[in-house]
């Protein structure tokens, strides 16, 4: 009883979903690695360093993701010579790599702001206490500050992942066959609009799954913050963001 359309294009859509997931996972993780130094730079007392980090964050949060993707994908084509010289042309020739790269530097800017806010929310006394115990900066960050900041960062990070899943659809415009790309291809062949609705269902399922997993994760990570009398956890608020 599977509709004809799904029989023909269903597997393709799932294949596209896999590419979407791959794009999102790569860029979220690489973005996180990039974001932590940026967040530290934003918090730096050195004016020049924090100004550079501010400029980076401001640029990538203030311009459309699609424009950034075009800047990298088409812009790289202009620098074939220099890129070949440093051996990076092979990387930038591929649309998937360009999309992953653009998403990485974009999400790094957003994540940097999330981590900055989370680190700043850790009370000063925690830093001072670590210092009075004789901890160096490294252990202070790893053992004292980051674990407490992680709880604050969790929810906005979940929102960022959802925004990245939604945002990754623009990769289809530069010929990446993610879920959106496969859907457009199937539509151009079948001219049946319902294919877009199937894609919509898949996207919604993906976002809803992340939302549920994230709510569970948050309940688990904050279990030490609840008292016995509050054993019944407060209803976790809606995760899908209101603002970015």
């Amino acid at each position, binding site marked *: 009883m599977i509709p004809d359309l799904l029989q023909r294009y269903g597997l393709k859509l799932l294949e596209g979903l896999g590419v979407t997931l791959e794009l999102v996972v790569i860029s979220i993780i690489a973005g996180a690695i990039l974001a932590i130094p940026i967040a530290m730079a934003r918090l730096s007392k050195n004016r020049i360093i924090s100004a550079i980090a501010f400029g980076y964050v*401001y*640029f990538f949060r*203030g*311009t*459309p*993701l*699609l*424009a*950034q993707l*075009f*800047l990298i994908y*088409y*812009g790289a*084509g*202009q*620098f074939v010579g220099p890129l070949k010289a440093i051996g990076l042309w092979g990387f930038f020739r591929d649309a998937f790599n360009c999309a992953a790269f653009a998403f990485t530097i974009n999400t790094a800017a957003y994540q940097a702001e999330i981590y900055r806010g989370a680190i700043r929310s850790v009370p000063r006394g925690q830093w001072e206490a670590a210092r009075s115990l004789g901890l160096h900066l490294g252990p202070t960050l790893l053992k004292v500050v980051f674990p407490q900041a992680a709880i604050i960062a969790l929810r906005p990070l979940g929102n960022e992942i*959802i925004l990245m*899943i*939604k*945002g*990754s*659809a*623009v990769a*289809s*415009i530069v010929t990446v066959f993610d879920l*959106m790309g496969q*859907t*457009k291809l199937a*539509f151009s062949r079948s001219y049946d*609009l319902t294919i*877009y*609705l199937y*894609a*919509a269902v898949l*996207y*919604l399922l993906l*976002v*809803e799954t992340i939302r549920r997993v994230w709510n569970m994760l948050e309940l688990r990570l904050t279990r030490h913050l609840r008292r016995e009398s509050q054993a019944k956890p407060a209803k976790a608020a*809606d995760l*899908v*963001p*209101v*603002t*970015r």
Partner: protein
Amino acid sequence: MPNLLHLLSFGPEGWGDEILAGTWLTIRLALATLPFGLILGFFVSLTKRSEAAWLRFVGEAFSTIFRGLPELLTIFIVYFGASLGFQWVVRLFSDATVEISGFVAGVIALGVVFAAYASEVFTAAFNGIPKGQWEGGAAIGLRRWQTMRLIVFPQLMRLALPGLANLWLILLKDTSLVSVISINDLLRMTYQAVSYTKQPFFLYFVACMIYLLMSIVSSFGITAIERWAERGERVRTATTKPRDVMQEKAATS
């Protein structure tokens, strides 16, 4: 470098006027979407507060779906779907073939997404208004919608303003997505300029800077509007503060 700047000159040689025209269209698109999205979002937030379960369900479903879908997908669905649906309605009356313009489809799609997020902002703002305001309105004999219009709504807008301002900044960026349904917005005009001049890096960078400039200008406007909206609040806090100090003195002496 002077060679590159030449690309941005006005007239038949340069692309400055085309890019400026695209910018103007982007601004018009965003400005046209704003009232539509605001009004729709307000009504969606009303349905979420409704006593009828089915209305609440419709409101929740609307905002969950359009916050969960990629904006690009929404734009495609509206662009192809709305023209089909519109055609179907028109066919009931006549044989005329109508086509929904890209601009209208863009406004509808972006407006629906804006409304889905705005309804959440309004819902939070509604929750921020004490029940006593409604009861006060009823006590002085106002009807429910009069209370809404005269008492609740002005306070609601002040509470919702920061969230809505944020949504405006997102809307400005999201307009770039309509370039895929062949609307000649800033990004599409830049795309065309690139295909002629083969200077993608410089021209897309210029486009990014124009987007950035638009959001900087918006930020100034938003600050001004917020200051204007809070002017009553400032007077209130200014007049209540000295009184608190007096009470404190009385308590300690």
